């Protein structure tokens, strides 16, 4: 293969050709020959770049200089200046039409305007692998303040004052937990961080660890000082390799700079941190199972009490908080509890990070003040539902949570409001659903997850959730009875009451909340053998509407020859033959095929 030091790409698409690109190519060939460059520079005719209004377009590699509106006369200059002397001819470069009021900064987009970033304040701003950048943005300042100016009780008092609640799901007051751990008797104590993040679709903790790992190091050290621990563990799932790598780097750098280890800030306080990897089981996010896993045992929960604050890792008093909970600590210390309390609602202070997903235009990670309404999150931050579809419900709390229907969309988000609606804050998954989502199917999806993830230790969870899943399968296949619905409810209540840990105690929530708000959907499946959303495959069929033009495209697309019809006549699908693959609907140019 011949090697050229430079390539000149000339667009030979229809648009550019009609604006004289072929003459330009000829001129380049002539110019290269005159300058003896034909062995060094290659001219390539390319297809359309898609910027026809800027044509004829010429691109010179390796620089990638993008010349637009090139005339034959310009070729000589490009050859002599750029190809020969290596100087880009700047006045010929493409310039975007200047768009009036063009938004160029992401902070100006609606997606960010309503957000308030405390836990995520450094994410997307600093280089997470550079401790000095963290320090530049007030990193380790809270730790310095705590160690040199405050007594442990004073630190706990501030956290209590701030009314910060645990962000891992339960919403337990963080300050109280710190106090319990501080007061617990024990020669040794531990600080632990729950970075298991098992909710499907949730990734806020991962983002904090990847984007701002030092905040966890700093906060856990502060917590160690407050409760009297010298050792901390961060429990992360091995499926988060980048988070693990950056956190380890942060720990090493902090040690190197004397921000971890012995005599931090020349005080008598020593603190060290270690990472423990989990294998990614949902139940290992439950605190007692997590502690077993840290100790090297099988990740199964045990009854509480005793709570970890009294008997945790190696039976020693242990403070366990979630990643996002810790991420708030340094800011609370630096700005004071009054500042933190000024954000949020009566019972829920500060912000919450949500992983926004599902049928929503702007998927992503959002941090909002508590008390923001679901509507604001979905329509203003999330940009609404794609394709002009109708909002149906939002799922929060993952497999432990529930579905909140459209009539409650103006509810301000906080711990108590979500529980009142039969859902919960959970760790922050937020899945938006539209008219095409079947609520029975959604409940089935989460039950399927919990059945998979149940550790098997206690029968209500191990056997009960399996029975629930079987009933849901039956209903979504159109074989359910009204008695099945009653049994589902009974099972749900019993499993909630009798399970050993939070996994089983909350596993029925997706079923209970959909039964509460969408009972008629269950009944339609049972009584009419119909899935109102058209999502359950067994219960829906494809139909060709009267608007069919008889073009025959669907007929060709059908892999089982289930479609028949004369040209220019409305076609029909033979439901006995149809395998419901959906190919016809996808191919129909007139939207004349529906599933219902």
């Amino acid at each position, binding site marked *: 293969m011949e090697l050229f030091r430079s390539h000149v790409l000339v667009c030979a698409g229809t648009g550019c050709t009609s604006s004289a690109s072929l003459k330009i190519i000829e001129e380049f060939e002539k110019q290269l020959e005159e300058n003896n460059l034909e062995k060094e520079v290659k001219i390539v005719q390319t297809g359309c770049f898609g910027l026809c209004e800027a044509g004829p377009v010429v691109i010179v590699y390796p620089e*990638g200089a993008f010349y637009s509106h090139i005339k034959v006369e310009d070729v000589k200059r490009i050859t002599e200046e750029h190809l020969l002397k290596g100087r880009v001819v700047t006045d010929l470069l493409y310039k975007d039409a200047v768009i009036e009021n063009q938004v160029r900064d992401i902070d100006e987009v609606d997606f960010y305007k309503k957000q308030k970033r405390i836990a995520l304040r450094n994410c*997307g701003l600093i280089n997470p692998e550079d401790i000095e950048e963290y320090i530049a943005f007030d990193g380790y300042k809270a730790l310095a303040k705590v160690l040199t100016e405050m007594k442990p009780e004073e630190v706990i008092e501030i956290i209590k004052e701030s009314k910060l609640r645990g962000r891992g799901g339960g919403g337990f007051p963080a300050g109280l937990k710190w106090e319990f751990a501080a007061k617990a008797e024990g020669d040794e104590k531990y600080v632990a961080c729950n970075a298991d993040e098992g909710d499907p679709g949730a990734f806020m903790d991962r983002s904090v660890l990847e984007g701002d790992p030092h905040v966890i190091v700093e906060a856990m050290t502060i917590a160690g000082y407050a409760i009297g621990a010298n050792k901390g563990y961060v429990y992360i799932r091995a499926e988060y390799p980048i988070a693990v790598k950056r956190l380890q780097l942060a720990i090493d750098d902090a040690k190197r700079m004397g921000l971890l280890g012995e005599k931090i800030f020349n005080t008598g306080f020593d603190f060290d941190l270690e990472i423990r990897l989990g294998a990614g089981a949902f139940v290992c996010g439950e605190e007692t199972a997590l502690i077993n896993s840290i100790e090297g045992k099988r990740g199964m929960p045990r009854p509480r009490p005793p709570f970890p604050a009294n008997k945790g890792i190696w039976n020693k008093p242990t403070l366990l908080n979630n990643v996002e909970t810790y991420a708030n600590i340094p800011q609370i210390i630096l700005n004071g509890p009054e500042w933190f309390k000024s954000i949020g609602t009566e019972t829920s202070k500060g912000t919450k990070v949500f992983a926004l997903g599902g049928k929503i235009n702007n998927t992503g990670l959002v941090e909002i003040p508590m008390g923001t309404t679901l509507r604001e999150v979905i329509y203003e931050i999330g940009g609404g539902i794609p394709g002009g579809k109708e909002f149906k419900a939002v799922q929060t709390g993952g497999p432990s949570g529930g579905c909140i229907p459209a009539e409650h969309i103006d509810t301000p988000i906080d711990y108590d409001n979500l529980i009142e609606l039969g859902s919960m804050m959970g760790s922050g998954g937020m899945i938006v659903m539209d008219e095409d989502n079947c609520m029975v199917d959604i409940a089935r999806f989460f039950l399927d997850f919990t059945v998979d993830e149940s550790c098997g230790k206690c029968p209500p969870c191990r056997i009960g959730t399996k029975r629930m899943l079987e009933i849901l399968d039956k209903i979504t296949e159109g074989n359910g009875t009204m008695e099945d619905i009653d049994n589902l409810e009974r099972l749900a209540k019993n499993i909630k009451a009798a399970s050993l840990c939070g996994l089983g105690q909350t596993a029925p929530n997706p079923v209970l909340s959909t039964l509460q708000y969408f009972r008629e959907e269950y009944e339609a499946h049972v009584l009419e053998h119909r899935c109102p959303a058209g999502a359950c495959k067994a219960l829906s069929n494809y139909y060709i509407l009267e608007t069919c033009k008889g073009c025959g495209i669907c007929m060709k697309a059908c892999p089982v020859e289930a479609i028949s019809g004369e040209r220019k006549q409305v076609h029909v699908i033979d439901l006995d033959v149809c395998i419901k693959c959906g190919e016809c609907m996808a191919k129909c140019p007139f939207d004349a095929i529906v599933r219902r």
Partner: protein
Amino acid sequence: MKSIADLEKIREAALERVNLRSDRQGIRIVVGMATCGIAAGARPVMMSFLDEIKKRGIEHVVVTQTGCIGACQYEPIVEVYDGDEKTTYIEMTVDKAKRVVLEHIVNGNIVDGYTIGSYKK
């Protein structure tokens, strides 16, 4: 680390380095490199920036990485800090990165077509 004064010293020095806002000649290119960004192709984009800048011998430009900015569907996201101005480029590719270096960094013209405001659903 012995004292708060030590920390403060590092802070000031680092801020000087990070915060190019006070120093109008510097440009800071920040590539979102969390799992989402990397999965969307941020690594080659970052390499492309580094390559282009090296190849062109441009000074006063720092290319660095950062964590998740939160807007997954726009990844890879690259932010360019220049003086008081911040530009957010979205759905970046190796070629787009080259063009941003050429147009924005070299010529000083923001490539509006790649910025967040030009996103179409």
